[in-house]
């Protein structure tokens, strides 16, 4: 019960401030139609606050059945309180009293406004980014794992690929851009290439590390049991390297995400990076922040997916590493 109150209290504070504290400059946000009703950013922000509060109430009810879940809920409640208070403070500083420099730091209602105003554009650009990211990331990860395994397993491959890896790893995107645009027929492919490059580097080097650290005795055990070289790679080297491969993939995720914005400045007709740049040019920072919110959600989802995959593939590790 204490956990629930703590969790929701912050949101309630945020909601009260949104409702009762007036705008210092009497700012009026335009209302936009959303289905049958008309909403302003203020309304949407309020709805989101209430929605989140309801979600936490439901979560609390579900968690009551299980001691561990109950504990986790309780543990997280201080953070939730802080989040609510932060939103309230931000609302005051960003929207209500405009203490933050405007228009650079809009309040939460301002950002909500962007979704109402530009919802479909944001959605389309998100889809575009997802497509680009998926191509670049998956290709880069696959190529990275293959190269990593080759380097890790064959000393010859390491001898030749390592210097290339060391050079490519630090070349800034500026260098790759002309190369990519000239090499590939479409700029979409060029942008994918840019992402592939920046995923490839960490995935390769960490996969190689994982493969190299496989103890010789494990290969020998497999050999004594009749496993061929190829089988040894697939049933010994790769499973052993899997934790490091995942570390590489997670590093690459953050890294390629920051490069997505740059890739979308290379002749792409859309994407969140494109949208951010376009909005920034006209100082529509509330739209910039809206895009960032989308990116944060996207990143969380990707990370969540990777975590799930990792947990299921590395369940044998549970309890080994703290």
């Amino acid at each position, binding site marked *: 019960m204490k956990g629930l109150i703590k969790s929701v209290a912050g949101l309630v504070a945020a909601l009260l401030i949104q409702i009762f504290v007036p705008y210092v400059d009497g700012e009026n946000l335009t209302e936009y139609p959303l289905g049958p009703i008309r909403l302003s950013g203020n309304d949407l922000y309020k709805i989101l606050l209430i929605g989140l509060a309801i979600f936490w109430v439901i979560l609390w009810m579900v968690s009551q059945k299980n001691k561990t879940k109950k504990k986790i809920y309780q543990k997280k409640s201080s953070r939730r309180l802080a989040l609510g208070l932060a939103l309230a403070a931000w609302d005051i500083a960003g929207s209500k009293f405009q203490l933050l420099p405007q228009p650079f730091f809009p309040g939460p209602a301002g950002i909500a406004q962007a979704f109402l105003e530009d919802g479909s554009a944001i959605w389309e650009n998100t889809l575009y980014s997802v497509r680009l990211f998926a191509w670049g990331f998956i290709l880069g990860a696959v190529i990275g794992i293959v190269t990593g395994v080759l380097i890790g397993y064959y000393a010859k491959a390491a001898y030749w690929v390592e210097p290339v890896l060391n050079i490519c790893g630090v070349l800034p995107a500026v260098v790759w851009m002309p190369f990519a645009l*000239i090499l590939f027929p479409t700029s979409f492919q060029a942008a994918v290439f840019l992402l592939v490059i920046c995923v490839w580097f960490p995935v390769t080097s960490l996969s190689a590390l994982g493969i190299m650290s496989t103890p010789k005795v494990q290969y020998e055990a497999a050999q004594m049991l009749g496993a061929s070289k190829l089988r040894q790679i697939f049933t010994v080297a790769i499973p052993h390297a899997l934790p490091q491969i995942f570390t590489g993939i997670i590093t690459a995720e953050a890294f390629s995400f920051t490069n997505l914005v740059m890739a979308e400045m*290379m*002749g792409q*007709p859309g994407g969140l990076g*494109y949208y951010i740049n*376009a909005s920034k040019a006209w*100082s529509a920072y509330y739209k910039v922040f809206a895009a960032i919110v989308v990116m944060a959600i996207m990143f969380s989802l990707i990370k969540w997916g990777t975590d799930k995959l990792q947990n299921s593939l590395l369940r044998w590790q549970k309890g080994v590493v703290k």
Partner: protein
Amino acid sequence: SANTSATSDSEASSEDTEYKYGEVQIPALDGALCGAPIYIAYENGYFAEEGLDVKLISADAETRKIGLNDGTIPITNGDYMYFQSIEQDVDVTVVDGLHNGCIKILVPKGSDIDSAEDLIGAKIGVDEIGGTPYQVSSLWLENNGVKANGNDAQVTFLPYSDGNLQLEALYSGEIDAAAIWDPVGAKAIASGKAEALLDIGTDDIFADKYCCFIYASNKVLDENPEEIAALLRALHKASQYINDDPESSAKIISEGGYSEIDDIDMAVELLQSYQYPTLEEFESGERDVKEQVQFFAEQLYDIGYLSTPADELIDRLYTKVDY
């Protein structure tokens, strides 16, 4: 040699000068010729004469905008790109004009495209969605009956953060036209691989109008209008100098390393085409900055790039500074 020698020059020449306004940062180091008066004012000591200890820095559009807003940068050169920002309450205003046309729309040499209508369905490369080449192209297209904005737009704009890559995309057919800044644009024409579909130095809509304005920080303007005035005086002297002697101007800029000019003749040609005003023109006010700002604001409003009518916005867009 570039910066230090320049710095030491100005230090030597102005050792006895009292720097009334202290150190002033001006963004100019972007490699283009638009900022020519700034380099010249710096190299010829005009800033120092006005009591300004100027330090040149390199800054992208974003940095300039924020610097102006915060007052850490007093002035910068720029096009219509900040009109929307002013509408969004960024504390910036136009105070003067700098020079005419430095943007072109290029098509590959021998292309079938030779009018705005031919661009219907085309892909147009720009440096930045929302940037000046983007706005210029949109204005031109809309004026010539082609929809450039909105869901029913008849063209697609694609951003290329590097002008050279934009050209490469143009040559490879990835885009049909490139709205591009000088000197990259001028060089492309000189190389014979591209030709200009639109040159705002000569086009009816844009000719005889400023392309680059001088923007000032409202904050500095409130706190220290004298400083802005001093800056403008220095720039006017430089403008006069360029007008008088584009050859030595180009040489000064090249030798100072402000612009990696490899073709001095073209640089001279460009400087001339920009029609830097003379002191006389400034004083007579025959080139009415306010009127031109209003004109572009109206145009941008008409095509939907500004959502506030020009009349309401003009007081924020333009501020008269006495110098």
